[in-house]
């Protein structure tokens, strides 16, 4: 198997924590991974992306070739569109609906959703709402991670273990909230995937 994922967001939104959780899960499942990150200047509120490649065979390039990503996972709706040239014909676009507006010319949300709907396989979820219901807005990224689960060839338990590993240091309560957000994100995404496929 091979899954190529483009993670998208805005510097500071923490897409690397999603990448880390998937990476740990893949590793636990004895899969190969390569994950390219953006550090430095763009982390100050600029557009950021991470290429995450998971495969049962060895992986050559740290970058995903154009037109071949299986999944764009974005924590911000406009950013989900920025990497469309990477998405394969059968790939899925999964995005959070909550805009992060730090530029004066940010487009209207209807316009964005209109573009997202043009992609044959897309899932839009309200990760912020899901996270709040799970106990903390800060778990929004883990809700997005949950939303990616139906598109990964990695057992769900491995993903849960990844979260336990990452948040373990912060105590049981934090782990619980993040696991709940993960589960709610997964459910929401699963439903929409079935509806949209």
């Amino acid at each position, binding site marked *: 198997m091979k899954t190529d994922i483009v993670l998208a967001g805005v510097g500071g939104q923490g897409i690397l924590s999603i990448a880390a959780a998937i990476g740990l899960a893949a590793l636990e499942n004895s899969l190969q991974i390569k*994950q390219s*990150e953006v550090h430095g200047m763009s982390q*100050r509120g600029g557009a950021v992306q991470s290429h995450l490649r998971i495969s049962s065979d060895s992986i050559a*390039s740290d970058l995903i*070739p154009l037109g071949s990503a299986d999944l764009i996972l974005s924590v911000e709706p406009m950013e989900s569109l920025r990497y469309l040239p990477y998405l394969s014909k059968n790939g899925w676009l999964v995005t959070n609906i909550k805009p992060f507006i730090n530029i004066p010319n940010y487009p209207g949300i209807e316009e964005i959703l209109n573009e997202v709907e043009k992609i044959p396989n897309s899932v839009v979820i309200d990760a912020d709402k899901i996270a709040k219901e799970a106990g903390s807005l800060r778990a929004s990224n883990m809700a997005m991670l949950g939303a990616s689960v139906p598109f990964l060839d990695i057992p769900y338990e491995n993903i849960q273990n990844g979260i336990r590993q990452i948040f373990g240091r912060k105590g049981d309560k934090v782990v619980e909230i993040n696991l709940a957000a993960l589960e709610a994100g997964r459910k929401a995404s699963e439903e929409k995937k079935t509806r949209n496929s």
Partner: protein
Amino acid sequence: MEKLLLLGAEAIAKGAIDGGMSGVYAYPGTPSTEITEYVQNSKYAKENNLHSRWSANEKTAMEAALGMSYAGKRAMVCMKHVGLNVAADPFVNSAITGVNGGLIITVADDPSMHSSQNEQDSRFFGKFALIPVMEPSNQQEAYDMAYSGFELSEKFKLPVMLRITTRLSHSRAAVKTSEIKKQNETSYPEDPIQFVLLPSNARKRYKLLLNLQGTIEEASENSEFNNYFDGKDKSLGIIACGIAYNYLIENFHGDKSPYPILKIGQYPIPSGKITQIYNECKRILVLEDGYPLVEEQLRGFFNKDNKVDGRLNGLIPRDGELNPDIIAKALGIKTITGNPVPKIVANRPPELCTGCGHRDIYEALNEVMKEFGPQRVFSDIGCYTLGALPPYNAINSCVDMGASITMAKGAADAGIIPAVAVIGDSTFAHSGITSLLDAVNEKSPITVIISDNSTTAMTGGQHSSAHGKIEDICRGLGVEPEHIKIITPLKKNHEDFVKLLRDELNYKGVSVIIPRRECIQTAAKSKKTEKLEKESTD
């Protein structure tokens, strides 16, 4: 031996620790910062007293590493590509002095300038200094080269360069580690005047270096990192350096390449292997992430055979980072692109954080500069360089570390009076101090704003080496005490700040204004750590 998931930068740090390193020296700079940070966070490094504290700049780092090598121990110095310009003097001369303990100079280049002022290729510097250069294609090789690099250095008694690019530095993959080697014991160089580069001695040392060239080329020829992979189709031979090899292999989708490939990971260029592929194949495609170093040498000035393709004839773009698609195009492989980016997607450049003190500085500066005229604010390298972008458009230069002060001085010498410099605390410590001395010595009519957020913020909040010493340094350099002013950059102090700036801009000598407020990122981080520590002790 274990298997770890590491960034390329971290793999180098781990390889160096396991390879018996006694210390790392560096100034933070993207994409090299994570090497030193990994050593700083390593339990083993702490227990075994490995040096890992940040240096004031790349030159001091390079010199300290050379000193550790003089004392027989293995040392690494790390920097971004432009940092090597700062360290160039000791770097080039370290090839003439040679080393005692193994010395690795790790340089992280930034093709496409993700976080830099240029995309210079450090392999040229390695060739210039006449030393071996290693260039890993993946994280495992990054580990292995750092691990074995000290021995290579000790074998030739020469420093060795380890060159990576941003993509490898910031990409994670599994790395298998090797057995930890013991640190060297302290020892003196065999020859007590080896490091004395008086002309009479330097000439001898330089001859020695020249005489070694055949041997280090032979090492390249036999290096495990330089591999010739034969292919049936000799219409094309491909030379792939460092990470370019991965982008190339990606295009064969798990199948073997039909063309012969020469993978290069160690320089000088292995002449035997190069000659073989050049003679066997009808055309040669050179893939290198950076400048056309190998390509230029293969073509030669007259390009007689006209059979080399690459950046110089436009088959590969002349600038910017490589990727699998660029190489596919060069190979004539058809690629598919997903949907285009919709027109509504707006550009989202980086910006100063909400609540950042630099913002308050530019608010005040822009207001007061209306009175003094346009295009006279010289700035420097750090988060505050973002003041060049909207909404502030407040600065007119960003060239190299420390240049703000000296450029302001030069502009004032030429009649732009008053001129202003905006520099951060860490950049001031790095290279601004001598600049300020020049200005003080001539009583230049400049106002220097040292924006003190008490950290090296852009690279993630590393220790700033002049922390707590800035006023003392300014006084020591001879700035008049009544023209060293401190203010807290906050909205509520805006009017005071504007007035202070106006007064000092009107002073016909050197003024230093220090707006001081901790970086909100590091402040938030230390608050978080405090909270965690409190929770764990409760």
